[in-house]
């Protein structure tokens, strides 16, 4: 893997989780460490606003940041249940 690692281990693990599900990671920024892009970032995308998600370099709480990243990935097309209300 060629990209720069995130300095917070929790966040790095969450990013690797995202990559394993097909998300693309782009590094760049100062407060922002980079962005992640949903693999279905087109008409089939189901994550809405979060199909492009910004990652902080130094989130206030790395564990929370990591948990939120995983949740976005899990809610994306792959992980979302199709159940109807």
């Amino acid at each position: 893997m060629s990209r720069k690692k995130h300095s917070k281990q929790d966040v790095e693990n969450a990013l690797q989780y995202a990559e394993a599900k097909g998300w693309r990671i782009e590094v760049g920024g100062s407060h922002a460490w980079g962005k992640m892009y949903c693999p279905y970032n087109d008409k089939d995308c189901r994550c809405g606003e979060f199909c492009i998600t910004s990652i902080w370099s130094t989130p206030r709480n790395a564990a929370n940041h990591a948990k939120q990243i995983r949740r976005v990935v899990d809610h994306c097309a792959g992980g979302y249940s199709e159940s109807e209300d």
Partner: protein
Amino acid sequence: MKEYEFTLKFMLQDASIDPEIFIERLGAEGCDDALVGLGQNGRIAMTFNREASSAYQAISSAICDVKRVIPDARLIEATPDLVGLTDVAELLGFSRQNMRKLMLGSGGTFPAPLHDGKPAIWHLAKVLGWLKERNKYQIDDALLEVSNTNMQFNIVKEIKEIDPGLQDDIRTLIA
């Protein structure tokens, strides 16, 4: 201090603006406790995990932080508030079937939906309150507080649609 988790969705006045340009300043202005979503042009969504003395304090300070960076950002929704049964089940770690059973077996005490369709929509605070009062379920206090506060924001946001000329009359009719 408690930690409150909520998502705020904003609309930018100029839909052609890539919200990307605001990211660095949002980081500098205290939004480093939020995950920022930029997937839709003209929109910005932020999921906060914010420590504060109350849900209102957490949510109002988050909106202030965003408005300092993007003064014309307009709040379009505070979540979680408007939910279907699947959302409630997911938030509480129930199965959807279990949630349905609770609703159908409630003997008509289950809160009336805001919209009865496919899907039917409730205010989360109403459903959580019912689960807590009627069924003695353990409901996370922070979630209950957030859902109540979000409901206030979402309702007040709609008040500008009110026709003042009809307001009193309608109030009587629906009382």
